């Protein structure tokens, strides 16, 4: 079976201006959402206590709130988690208060109201304010360090402009996935950082496959008597690898969808980040990495104004 014909000739590079507009819009929307709505940081970063409880029958959220208000947690975030019987309660840390106190008080309040047998502790998470700060710093560091490591590796294996193209694609992907989290208000937790780094790995994987073919075709092209324009060579390379790009996206998407639908509530947002990442990662390896790489090159004969115009865009 072959869904994508081998003699495909789509003018990807020719449409790069159009793609740049799409990317620019997506990035602006993302940055806007991040600036106005911001990320819904989970307790991993803000510090706080999370208690997940399973009731024997679905309780009313009002009753749950009523049961913990006397303990001083009336303003807790209370929500269903996966099923109506499962309730997640999230509170901010009060100053200098110890975790044991908060989660114990919440569980006590619940068992006083509903009876100790009616509730079952599913999960308690507490992150102290200091740990939250450390995790935030470590998360940012991780993204920066991996981008730097990739920059070095790709420069070493390819050329500097390829590395910049790859990193531009990564920034593009991360910004958009983050923007999506801000837009949907999904909780941004530690596993989502893991998902983001995986998206980095995945998107890069795609980009490298295209670049690898570009490198191969550049080498072949230079040996010719009348070398083609770099734009054309890059476009051919994308066309040659598009079947693989699509196939891998499909297989990865299949398993990530399985994770999204079957993996349970805890892993849900993680899978969501991966799904978003696969889409933008696939897109960026075609429409962001290569055009940026081309724009950064002084070696190919292209309209000077066009380069300036492209560089001026966000």
């Amino acid at each position, binding site marked *: 079976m*072959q*869904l994508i014909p*081998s003699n495909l000739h789509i003018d990807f590079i020719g449409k790069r201006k159009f793609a740049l507009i799409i990317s620019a819009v997506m990035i602006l929307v993302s940055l806007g959402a991040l600036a106005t709505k911001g990320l819904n940081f989970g307790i991993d970063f803000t510090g706080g206590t999370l208690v*997940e409880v*399973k009731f024997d029958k679905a309780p009313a959220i009002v009753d749950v709130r009523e049961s913990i208000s006397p303990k001083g947690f009336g303003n807790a975030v209370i929500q269903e988690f996966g099923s109506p019987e499962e309730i997640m309660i999230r509170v901010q840390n009060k100053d200098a208060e*110890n975790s*044991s106190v908060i*989660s*114990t008080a919440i569980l006590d309040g619940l068992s006083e109201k509903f009876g100790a047998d009616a509730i*079952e*502790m*599913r*999960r*308690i*998470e*507490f*992150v*102290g304010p*200091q*740990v939250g700060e450390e*995790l935030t710093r470590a*998360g940012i560091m*991780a993204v920066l*360090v*991996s981008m730097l*490591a*990739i920059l070095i*590796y*790709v420069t070493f294996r390819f050329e500097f402009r390829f590395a910049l193209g790859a990193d531009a694609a990564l920034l593009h992907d991360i910004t958009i996935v983050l923007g999506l989290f801000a837009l949907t208000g999904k909780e941004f937790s*530690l596993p989502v*950082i*893991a998902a983001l*780094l*995986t998206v980095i*790995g995945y998107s*890069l*994987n795609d980009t*490298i*496959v295209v670049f*690898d073919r570009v490198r191969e075709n550049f080498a072949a092209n230079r040996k010719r008597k009348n070398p083609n324009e770099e734009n054309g060579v890059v476009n051919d390379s994308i066309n040659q690898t598009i*079947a*693989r790009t699509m*196939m*891998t996206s*499909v*297989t*990865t*998407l*299949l*398993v*990530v969808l*399985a*994770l999204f639908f*079957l*993996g*349970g509530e*805890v*892993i849900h947002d*993680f899978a969501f980040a*991966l799904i978003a990442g696969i889409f933008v990662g696939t897109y960026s390896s075609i429409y962001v990495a290569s055009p940026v790489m081309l724009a950064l090159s002084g070696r190919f004969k292209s309209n000077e104004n066009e380069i300036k115009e492209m560089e001026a865009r966000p």
Partner: protein
Amino acid sequence: MHSFPRWKYGLILTVLVVSLMGALPNFTTAPSWWPSALSNPMSLGLDLKGGIHLVLDVDVDKAVSHSVEEDIDTARQVLRKDRIRYSKLASDGNSLTIVIKEATDADAAAKIIAENFSTYDISNPAADTFVLNLKPANDKEIRKFAVDQSIEVIRGRIDALGTTEPVIVKQGERRILVQIPGYEDTTHAKQLIGRTAQLEFKLVDEKGDLEKALSGRIPPGDIIMYAPEQTRNGKSFRQPYLLKKHTELSGNEIADARVSIDSRFNEYAVTLKFNSKGARKFDKLTAAHVGERFAIILEGTVNSAPVIRERIAGGSAQITGSFSPEEARDLAIVLRAGALPAPVKVVEERSIGPSLGQDSIDQGLNSIIIGSILVLIFMGVYYRMFGMVANVALAFNMLLILAAMSIIGGTMTLPGIAGIVLTIGMAVDANVLIFERIREELALGKTPLAAIDGGYDKAFSTIIDANITTLIAAIVLFQFGSGPVKGFAVTLSVGILASMFTAITVTRAIIALSTAKRARIEKLSI
């Protein structure tokens, strides 16, 4: 087609056998003759097994200031011994200030301070003033000791819970990671772990005026401490006591602590047995102060202050206080395990109930199975025979990940399962690259065998570059990650490495085997 080297078949066969053997303990008990390196099943993380996960922060600054405070006692003793009068003895954090009264004593003071305080850097800013700063090396030593000691104490307490395989390890400079698998009562565990369990015996100052002391005039060398809050006639109050500051005996001198029944009130109590040094001290104390009271101070509050009726030589004491049986048992546990050298605070907790753990395993396995089936079908349909070869490699890959995780003693976590699921999707990528390349070669008009060679050769560098870059992200994740995230990084890395082997070498071997016998191949099933 290039001939496929013999040794590679051998390598594949070896890896296959080792993987099968390494994976076996996950399904059944390995026979006794099984190699020990291959006999361990993969361990499940707390998020799958259920249990308590705590990160504790040891207040090491307190340990240092406490140790310096204790040296005030030493300073008092040595100065008195040499009859050097002082006007100030004070500690602040890791420094100690001594001000002497007579300038003529300065030389003698300087000498004995230097003799007795070798762990301090001593400066002499004024003739009568000595400032002692704890040497950095000793400061560090005290901090390290406080954490190590806390680990021992906490281990003792947790062992008393009777759970299996608790993990208590140092994390960084001053933190302790505590994991108690399969234990659900987080409240109880935290109470037990967090108690300082500091036990002190001080004499009551029978001559001092408690009323005056309460109004602010505390006699020198004395201290006011309170009994726990009580409610009587609808009013709550705390009984104050005027005590001598000096601690006569402490929890360090306890050899054993057991739950007992107090015969007078028929209540639960804890009977302490002192060690030989403690027993001697207790003997001396009770002999010298018959008729006076001594206070038993537990974690900063006065538990009781019985009158010493006669000299007690046996070396045991009893703590009462209308305990419930559980309270008495917990108190005995913490006193037996010893006091924490510094207060500890829970800075992170991730505890999972057993049912959530089981749900996560079930859901994780479901996504692995469904995800694999989808990929297997897709590859089979899309690449036909070659797809089936890739599927065999994928199964091999799964086996290899399982075996590798078991052999390296890895821990499977929920994000780890996600890592495996993701690996399934990405593992076939290498094969997709190769197969697409073979198709291209065929389209260029090459013969089937030449196309296979071309496909593998040309895809090779791409596969390496693509996987190494993903590996970079996984390694960074491992460096930065805590607990569960680390599990994800480990399975992802193992998965990437395993997939490079199975997707390149194993598929090649299968294809080489299946084409070797045939003289001519007209068409590839790809």
